[in-house]
C-alpha cells in the first residue's frame, strides 16, 4: 500500500513537471497552430540562466525562499526575452509562408539552441545550485514527500489557472483568441496581432524558464540536451490533452506522468519512453483531438 501511494506521489510530481512545459507548447499552438519544437530548449536555457544567476549572486550559499523566487524570476525574464527573439527573428519573417516552413524552422531553432548550448555552456553535465533547501519534512512514515514536489505541483496548477484567466477574462486574452481564429481579420479589427503573438511566445517561454529552474531544483543535473526528452514528453502531454487546450495540457501531463511511473514501477522500466510515444500514436489514430480538444475542420 505504501508502495502504491509512493508511486502515486512520484507520478504526480513527474506529471506536474511535464505540465509546466506542456502549457507553453499548447499556448503557442493555440494561437499560431505552430508546434514550437524549440520550446524544450528554451526550458534548458531557463535552467542554465538560473544556474548562472545563482552562481553569480551566491544564492546557492544561503538557500532561502527569496533566492528561489529571485532565481525563478530571472530565469522567466531571460526566457521571455529568448522567446521574443526567437519569434521575432525566426518565425515572424515566415508569417506568410506555408505552415510546414515554420515547422521546419522550429526544428532548426531547436537544434541551434541545443548545439549553441553545448558550445557555450560546455556539454558536460552541470550541477544546479540548491537555492532553496526545504526545512520541513512532509513525509508520512515510509511515504516520502519532497516539499519541492508539492511546490512544483502547486505552481503548475496556479499557472494553469492564471493562463486560463489571462486568455478568457482579459482584453489581451481576447486579442489572443481573436488572433488565433484569423490573423488578418483580427488585425483589420485593430488588434496588433504581431504584438499579441510576441506576447504569447514570451508568456510560454517564461513558463518553460520556470520549469527549467524547478526541475533543476529536483533533479540537480543540467546539460544542454536536457530539453530534448522532456520537450517531447510535454508535447505528447499537450496532444494527449488536446493541443491548444490549457486544462487539457495539465491533465494530459499528469496522466502521462502517472502512466510512466506505474509502468516503470510495476512492469517494464525500459518501456518508459516507448509508452509516451505509443500513447501519441494511439491518440493520433483514435482521438486526434485529444481528451479535451474540440473537433474543428481544418485545411492543412
Amino acid at each position, binding site marked *: 500500500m*505504501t*508502495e502504491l501511494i*509512493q*508511486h502515486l506521489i*512520484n*507520478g504526480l*510530481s*513527474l506529471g506536474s513537471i511535464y505540465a509546466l512545459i506542456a502549457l507553453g507548447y499548447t499556448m503557442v499552438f493555440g494561437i499560431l497552430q505552430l508546434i514550437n519544437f524549440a520550446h524544450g530548449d528554451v526550458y534548458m536555457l531557463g535552467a542554465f540562466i538560473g544556474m548562472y544567476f545563482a552562481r553569480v549572486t551566491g544564492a546557492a550559499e544561503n538557500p532561502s525562499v527569496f533566492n528561489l523566487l529571485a532565481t525563478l524570476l530571472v530565469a522567466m525574464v531571460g526566457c521571455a526575452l529568448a522567446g521574443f527573439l526567437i519569434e521575432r527573428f525566426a518565425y515572424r519573417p515566415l508569417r506568410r509562408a506555408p505552415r510546414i516552413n515554420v515547422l521546419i524552422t522550429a526544428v532548426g531553432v531547436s537544434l541551434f539552441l541545443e548545439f549553441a548550448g*553545448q558550445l557555450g555552456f*560546455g*556539454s*558536460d*553535465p552541470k*550541477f544546479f545550485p540548491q537555492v532553496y533547501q526545504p526545512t520541513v519534512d512532509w*513525509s508520512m512514515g*515510509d511515504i*516520502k514527500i*519532497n516539499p519541492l514536489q508539492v511546490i512544483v505541483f502547486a505552481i503548475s496548477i496556479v499557472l494553469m489557472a492564471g493562463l486560463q484567466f489571462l486568455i478568457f477574462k482579459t482584453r489581451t486574452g481576447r486579442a489572443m483568441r481573436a488572433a488565433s481564429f484569423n490573423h488578418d481579420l483580427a488585425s483589420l479589427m485593430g488588434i496588433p496581432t504581431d504584438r499579441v503573438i510576441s506576447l504569447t511566445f514570451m508568456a510560454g517561454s517564461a513558463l518553460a524558464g520556470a520549469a527549467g529552474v524547478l*526541475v533543476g531544483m529536483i*533533479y*540537480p*543535473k543540467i*546539460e544542454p*540536451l*536536457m530539453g530534448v*526528452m522532456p520537450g517531447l514528453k510535454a508535447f505528447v502531454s499537450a496532444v494527449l490533452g488536446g493541443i491548444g487546450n490549457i486544462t487539457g495540457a495539465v491533465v494530459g501531463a499528469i496522466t502521462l506522468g502517472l502512466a*510512466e*511511473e*506505474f509502468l*516503470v*514501477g*510495476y512492469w517494464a*522500466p*525500459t518501456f*518508459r*519512453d516507448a509508452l509516451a510515444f505509443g500513447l501519441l500514436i494511439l491518440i493520433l489514430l483514435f482521438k486526434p483531438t485529444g481528451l479535451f480538444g474540440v473537433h474543428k475542420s481544418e485545411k492543412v
Partner: protein
Amino acid sequence: MISRHPFSVVLVALSVVLLAPACKKSQTADSAASGATVSGNVIKIGEVGSMTGSEATFGISTHNGIMLAVKQLNAAGGIAGKKVEVVSLDDQGKPEEAAVAMNKLINQDKVIAILGEVASSRSLAMAPIAQTHKIPMISPSSTNPKVTEQGDYIFRVCFIDPFQGTVMAKFAWESLKAKKVAILRDVKNDYSVGLADYFAETFKKLGGEIVIDQSYSAGDMDFKSQLTAIRSKNPEAIFVPGYYTEVGLISIQAKGLGLTAPLLGGDGWDSPKLTEIGGDSINGSYFANHYSTEDNSPEVQKFIKEYKEMFGVVPDGLAAMGYDAALVLFDAMKRSPQLTTPQIRDAIAATQKFKAVTGLISMDAKRNPVKSAVVLKIEKKSFKYQTTINPT
C-alpha cells in the same frame, strides 16, 4: 545551371575545400590494409575520445593522460629518434561518431596505432574498423569482454567486466556482509549490463540473493519509480553499475525516498562530477576502480605529481588508464624495429610484466591484461582507498 541561392555557392566552395586534401592524400596513399609504415620524422598515432558530450570528463581525463605520456616520451627523445604526434578526434560520446573518427584517422591521417575509447559501446563501434585495416588499437578503459573479441589487433590495458563485477560481488558479500542486494542497471549501456550480469552471477554463487533487478536508460532523470520498487524489497546494498552522469541523481533520489543502503558501482563512477551532483547523498557508497591516488608506490606518486604540474588537478582513474595505454603502446613501438603495424601488434601482444601506473600489465591470450582492482569509498567528496582485490 546557375544557382540562384547563395547557399549553394557556399556549399560548392566548401566541398572543393574539403575534397582537395582528400584527393591529394589518395594519390599518395600506400597500402593501408597490408600495414602502414612510418615515413618522415614523425610517428602519427590516433586517439578517439568523448571530449564533449555528457561523458566529457572521461574523454578529457584520458586525453590528458595520453598527452602527459607523449610529452615525456618526446622529451626523452621519442621512438628511434622520431617524435610521436597524436591526432585526437572527438566522438561527442556517440558510437556512430567514433566510427567516423576511426575512418578519418586511418584513411586520412594515416595513423599507425589508435588509442581509445573509454566507453565499451564506442570501442565496439571502432574495433571492427581497426581490425579490417589491421591497425593496432588499445582501449584504455573499455571493460566489456566483447571489445577485444573483435579481432587480434584489439587490446586493452584495463581489467574486464567479469572481474569488476566479481570484485564488487565479493566486496558486498565479504566486507559489507550483505545477503540481499538489489541491482539497478542502465540497459542502454553494454558496460552496465555486463557488470550487472557478472555481479549477479558471482553474488548468487557466494550464497547471496538478488532481491530485485531494475533498469533505466541513460539520459533518464527520474528514477523514483525503480527506487520505490527497490525500497519495498529492503536490500542491504544496491549495485548501480552506471556512469556518473546518472548515479549522482540516483543517489539523491534514493536518499529522498529514505533508502539508506549503500550504493555500489564500477569505474564508470570515477569523475569529480559524481560528488558534485550527488553531494552528501553519495557519501558511504563504494566503487571498483583501476587505481587509488592514495597508493604510495613510486610510479603512482610520480605520475600524480607530473600530471598535477601539467594540468593542475589530481588525475582520476581514467587519466591513469589513458597514460598507461600510451605507455604500453610506446613500449611496444620501441620493440618493433621497422614500426610496421603487424610488428607493433605482435609487440603489444608480447607485453609481459610491464610496470604501469595502474599495476603490472601482462597481456593474456585474449589480449586482456591480468591485473588487480581497488575498491574506493566515497567520503565527503573524496575517494578513500578500502581494499585491493586480486584476480584469482
